[in-house]
């Protein structure tokens, strides 16, 4: 049973493939800088994560066209954690110890991030995490380029409240940590804004829930009591199709009861018959339809790379783009790929958003983002109907939750802490060491 580690061969092959793909003009003798890609290529999450894998490969290729980094070529190392959470931790360890990658771009679900977090902290690696998430976390080794709740949920609610005059709220979500946290934050926020208990309905469903009859009926009743009602949906990927279909069939249209979703983007829509969804909303930090030169260029390169101009771009892709740019800048600034140096260098760096404005890496390892509300159109794209005037800084610890309103994250001296309690002036938990 004692055997030479199999994975080496694997990754070499994968790596070679990529290296070939990325014919760098600077074929220097310098050892390449390794970029790990940790996205599921099989299993349930493959639906979303495969695209992100391609995105990183594209970014690496582009960078190599520019002559690599520090005069060294970049080399992507791809592994498949197969939507299996323990496997995520295993593969992360593999990337960091076997392949000695300098940075990792990866993960989608919260549980996968939670699963790899200890590994990155133990081996002091770098992870760029591109998906909107529930917050309540800030690790020295992780950079959160997706939206924190205050960069997606709260602005969306503000829009519904102020622009559409919504008075009753249905918070519907799949039963896992992201919806739970988001809804608890929203509940607290709404109550602060004087919404009464009986005007908030919270409902959780299991993953891939497919029979929405009763719930939609309840929503319909809830909405038929005279006050303008909206649904704030944190329903996870697969369950959305039957949900929207049921809404449409029971005659709930976007103008009676609009649904604003946080997990439905261009990629998801491409797999849905959009007729029943038209007019419903989504809150993101990026829409493919945004008219901006950077965005146009990005879409063009993407279509060129994936060799299919039907493919859409979406928010997590932009997040990877931003993360990658910032990392490149940081490495150049630090002159090395050493983790601590890059961590020190990256804070405060800025890069262009694809939707205009700039993204800045904050001391809490989150970034500033504009928030856009889009309405779903027949063609599966979003028409932007509202957007924040300036970028919103990502907030690691929500101000609306009991446990965390006193916490801040700041990875610059003197605090250097992911969960610093401003009241007791102490750094809590393990990050203290």
């Amino acid at each position, binding site marked *: *049973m*004692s*055997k030479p*580690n*199999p*994975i080496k*061969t*694997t*990754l070499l*092959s*994968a790596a070679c493939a990529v290296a070939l793909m990325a014919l760098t003009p600077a074929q220097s003798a310098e050892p390449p800088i390794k970029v790990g890609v940790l996205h599921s*290529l*099989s299993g349930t999450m493959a639906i979303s994560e495969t695209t992100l894998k391609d995105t990183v490969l594209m970014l690496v290729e582009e960078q190599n066209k520019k002559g690599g980094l520090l005069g060294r070529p970049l080399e992507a190392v*791809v*592994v*498949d*954690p*197969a939507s*299996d*959470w*323990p*496997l995520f*931790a*295993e593969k992360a*360890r*593999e990337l960091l*110890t*076997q392949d000695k990658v300098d940075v990792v771009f990866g993960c989608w679900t*919260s*549980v996968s991030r*939670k*699963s790899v*977090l*200890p*590994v990155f902290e*133990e081996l002091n690696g770098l992870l760029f995490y591109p998906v909107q998430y529930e917050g*309540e*976390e800030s690790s020295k080794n992780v950079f959160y380029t997706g939206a924190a709740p205050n960069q997606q949920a709260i602005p969306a609610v503000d829009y519904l409240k102020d622009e559409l005059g919504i008075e009753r709220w249905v918070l519907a979500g799949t*039963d*896992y*940590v992201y919806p*739970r*946290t988001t809804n*608890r934050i929203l509940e607290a926020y709404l109550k602060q804004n004087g919404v009464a208990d009986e005007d908030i309905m919270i409902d*959780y469903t*299991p*993953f891939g829930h497919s029979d929405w009859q009763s719930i939609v009926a309840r929503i319909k009743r809830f909405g038929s009591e005279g006050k303008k009602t909206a649904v704030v949906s944190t329903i996870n990927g697969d369950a959305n199709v039957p949900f929207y279909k049921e809404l449409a069939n029971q005659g709930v249209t976007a103008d009676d009861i609009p649904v604003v979703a946080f997990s439905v983007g261009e990629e998801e829509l491409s797999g849905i018959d959009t007729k029943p969804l038209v007019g419903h909303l989504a809150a993101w930090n990026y829409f493919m339809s945004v008219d901006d030169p950077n965005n146009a260029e990005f879409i063009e390169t993407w279509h060129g790379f994936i060799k299919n101009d039907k493919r859409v771009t979406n928010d997590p892709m932009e997040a990877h783009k931003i993360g990658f740019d910032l990392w490149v800048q940081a490495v150049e600034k630090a002159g090395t790929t050493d983790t601590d140096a890059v961590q020190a260098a990256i804070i405060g760096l800025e890069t262009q958003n694809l939707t205009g404005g700039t993204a800045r890496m904050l001391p809490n390892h989150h970034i500033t983002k504009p928030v856009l509300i889009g309405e779903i159109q027949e063609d599966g794209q979003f028409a932007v109907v509202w957007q924040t005037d300036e970028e919103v800084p990502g907030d690691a610890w929500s101000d609306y*939750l*009991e*446990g*965390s309103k006193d*916490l801040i994250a700041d990875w610059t001296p003197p605090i250097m802490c*992911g*969960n610093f*309690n401003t009241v007791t002036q102490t750094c*809590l*938990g*393990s*990050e*203290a060491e």
Partner: protein
Amino acid sequence: MVLGRLLRDDRGGQAMLAVLLLVAVLVPILNLVVPEGNPWHVSTYTVTLLGKYLTYALLAVAVDLVWGYLGILSLGHAAFFGLGGYAMGMYLMRQIGDRGVYGHPVLPDFMVFLNWTELPWFWQGFDMFWFAVLMAILVPGVLAFVFGYLAFRSRVTGVYLSIMTQALTYALMLAFFRNEMGFGGNNGLTDFKDILGFDLTNDTTRIGLFLASALTLALGYLACRFIVTSRLGRVAVAIRDAEARTRFIGYRVDHVKLAIFTFSAMLAGIAGALYVPQVGIINPGEFSPLNSIELVIWVAIGGRATLYGAVIGAVLVNYGKTYFTGAFPEAWLFALGALFVLVTLFLPKGIAGLFSQAVTWWRVRRPRERTARVTP
């Protein structure tokens, strides 16, 4: 001596244990003594990987005991494995203490964020290692006992039983997904710090866990051998082949089934308890019915009704998975699927069957086959 008796006519087992011993001795040396960079160095990554395989192997042995010898196809052993895992996970969570992100002295992070004020009753006592281990064995045991008592008493057999065990693990999965259950919902339990005061991230700790797994596997294997070589084991096979007859010569079939089923469940629980600290996370995915089916397939591939076959099957299939998921991410499911089909079609006795056939070929005096023919 006992060991001798247990391993008589069990060449496969002897070989397996020998290899296990070899690995258990070599790996720590190659990992700790041999410096990194040296081609002989075994990375900690590989060590944990092996540790994981060993726990799977133990699980497979447990399944083979009930399926191979008792003829009960349990599609619910992942449930017992998972429960054992959760028991250990709860202990590890309690060990985190106030090092959680919210710095709460007692409550694990996910409880703080669910606004829970104090520890629910079923989390009491899990700060003690011995208690956690006890629970890792008892909880699956009790569940198996209750389920088995109902099922075997009312003579639920064959496919019905299999589907019921599947329902059991499915129900558990749904239950553990619920955050109200107080087991961390979909995220499960993770971010463990240390076990018995040893830092989990420490190489020696990992080696320790690896050795523990190896030892437990060996002991578990011998325990199962002891059962199958005893008269009880022969009664079990008798039940598998002719249940009614066994009843008529005066054995309480339901009692025999219950005893062995429960024991097997406990074994699975132990496997789970060893699995969690090595992979660093336990979540409801472990209860997924597909996992249960998959581990039945390990046994089938290794060779039903040969305990060492189960070990081989578990290690091979998982090694294959680790390899294929990296080698050809797009095609590995084809490979796996084809493997299952071909083995059932052409190797009804699995790999172990191949061995014994090979042996019988060149051995003049045919050694008695204890591996009974596979009958549904």
